[in-house]
């Protein structure tokens, strides 16, 4: 029913825009990663593998990458542990208050990311809210200094930020489970625990995978929370990239690290796509 002209008009402009402002920049990042920087700090457009060699040989790069992945895994696990039971509670036990409570989970997403990270900083600092509260209640005498400027602070803050992201797809998956399946399981004599593990949980796995991917991927690339709350031991891979694009002025090496990150992320997205497909029954 739609003419050729119509299809061309709706297809070509977005295609051109996305090619220029998304595809081209990604390709450019790929090119940059094979270039180098001269001693006079100019970009040399000669193709070589030096950046990737450096990436493999210098332990600081891949160790930071591994540490970032460790932080991202922890954020993912905590977000699932917080998000799944909450989604289950809303979907199955909240009754009429379901829609309201759903909004209550979503609202923190509308509060600026930066502002929430900053709020944690004011809570965890050595003269922050938590430490003064502990001393006020005579629970501690001296401020606990491991709270801020540590990987702990980064994991806590990122978990706070990404729990609603993890919650959303899990909740969507739980809401799509036909309730008569649950009833059938009960009628056939399954205990509540059996019903959960054999019916509800398997059907919610695609949501769990989507939520876990969101949490892992988004926290892997984060550089603001580590800068604000991480301290030296909480540095993540993106912080290295930021410094390579700033003061350290080595764009090609920065591009190589970004590309490594891009490959990990896109690989994970493909993997989670496969897994979701495998586990979806519809």
């Amino acid at each position: 029913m739609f003419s050729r002209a119509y299809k061309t008009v709706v297809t070509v402009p977005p295609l051109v825009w996305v090619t220029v402002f998304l595809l081209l920049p990604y390709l450019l990042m790929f090119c940059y990663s094979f270039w180098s920087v001269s001693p006079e700090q100019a970009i040399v457009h000669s193709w070589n593998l030096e950046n990737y060699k450096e990436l493999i040989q210098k332990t600081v790069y891949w160790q930071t990458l591994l540490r970032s992945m460790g932080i991202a895994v922890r954020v993912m696990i905590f977000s699932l542990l917080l998000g799944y039971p909450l989604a289950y509670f809303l979907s199955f036990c909240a009754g009429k208050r379901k829609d309201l409570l759903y909004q209550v989970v979503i609202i923190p997403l509308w509060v600026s990311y930066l502002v929430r990270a900053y709020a944690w900083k004011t809570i965890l600092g050595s003269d922050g809210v938590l430490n003064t509260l502990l001393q006020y209640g005579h629970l501690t005498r001296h401020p606990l200094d491991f709270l801020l400027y540590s990987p702990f602070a980064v994991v806590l803050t990122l978990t706070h930020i990404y729990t609603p992201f993890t919650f959303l797809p899990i909740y969507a998956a739980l809401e799509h489970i036909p309730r008569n399946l649950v009833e059938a399981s009960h009628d056939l004599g399954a205990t509540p625990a059996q019903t959960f593990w054999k019916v509800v949980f398997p059907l919610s796995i695609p949501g769990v995978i989507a939520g876990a991917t969101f949490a892992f991927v988004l926290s892997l690339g984060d550089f603001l929370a580590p800068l604000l709350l991480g301290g030296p031991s909480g540095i993540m891979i993106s912080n290295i990239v930021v410094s390579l694009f700033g003061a350290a002025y080595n764009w090609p090496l920065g591009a190589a690290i970004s590309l490594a990150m891009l490959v990990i992320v896109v690989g994970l997205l493909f993997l989670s796509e496969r897994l979701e497909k495998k586990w979806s029954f519809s």
Partner: protein
Amino acid sequence: MEFLLSTDPANVPRWLMLHAIAVFSFLYLPIAVLILYSFNGQGVGGFPPHHLTLNWYRILFADGPIWDSVLNSLQVAFAAMAISLIFGVPAALALDRAHFPGKAFFRRLVLLPLILPGIITGLSLLMLFNITGTKLSLITIMLGHGTALISVATTEVFAGLQKLDRAQEEASLDLGANYWQTFWRITVPNLKLSIIGAALLIFTLSMDEIAVSFFLIGRDNTLPLEIWGRLRRGITPEINAVSTIIFAFSLITIVLWYSLRRRSALGTDVGMELVESSNRDAN
């Protein structure tokens, strides 16, 4: 059964309820602290808060650079909204109705900035602007936000299109209206809620965006970057005050959006649509 489908609070396992309360507290604790300490005369931190004052708000209202950055952010958000709708709505129509080589790739590419860490999108655009000799300014941020947020417009409108009855468009075309008229008189009004929802979401995301802006910033700061600059110099309750005001505005936006939605039976949930359509695309 009671365990699983109960709406009676007495039958819900206690730990599940306590867990939900704990998670809600965890999500709202920083926001509560933030708001509370914006009124604290003693600065940020210290317990209990005392010397409650509106002084920080007074300082905030007299603070020129903050309000300049708010104006900059508003310009960026409106421009980003325009760019992502101008290209995102046709992109959704194309994905729904046209077949062209590389369509699957195109769909993935458009959605990528939504899930990719902002640093990668920001840096790759920085390289583009650098190599083409484009000077960094608010315009480069607008281009960055606009491009990254096409994904939001496309997913929202694509979800709306799935519910659209094509017979209306067909009738319009049969009755002699051209495609342009049909688009404005049938397609757009039917997609009204998806488009408004996408616009609001794009606006809010752009106002809050920092990872892409971080790399594309010229001389003029957006609000998040202005806040970022100040955070690095030390923390003051003035930041709490401006954050509290932003939070209040976000709440008003949400309430407006839901009252708008409630009036229409066609209502969809923006956040949910986004998640579901990205899941759908993944499948």
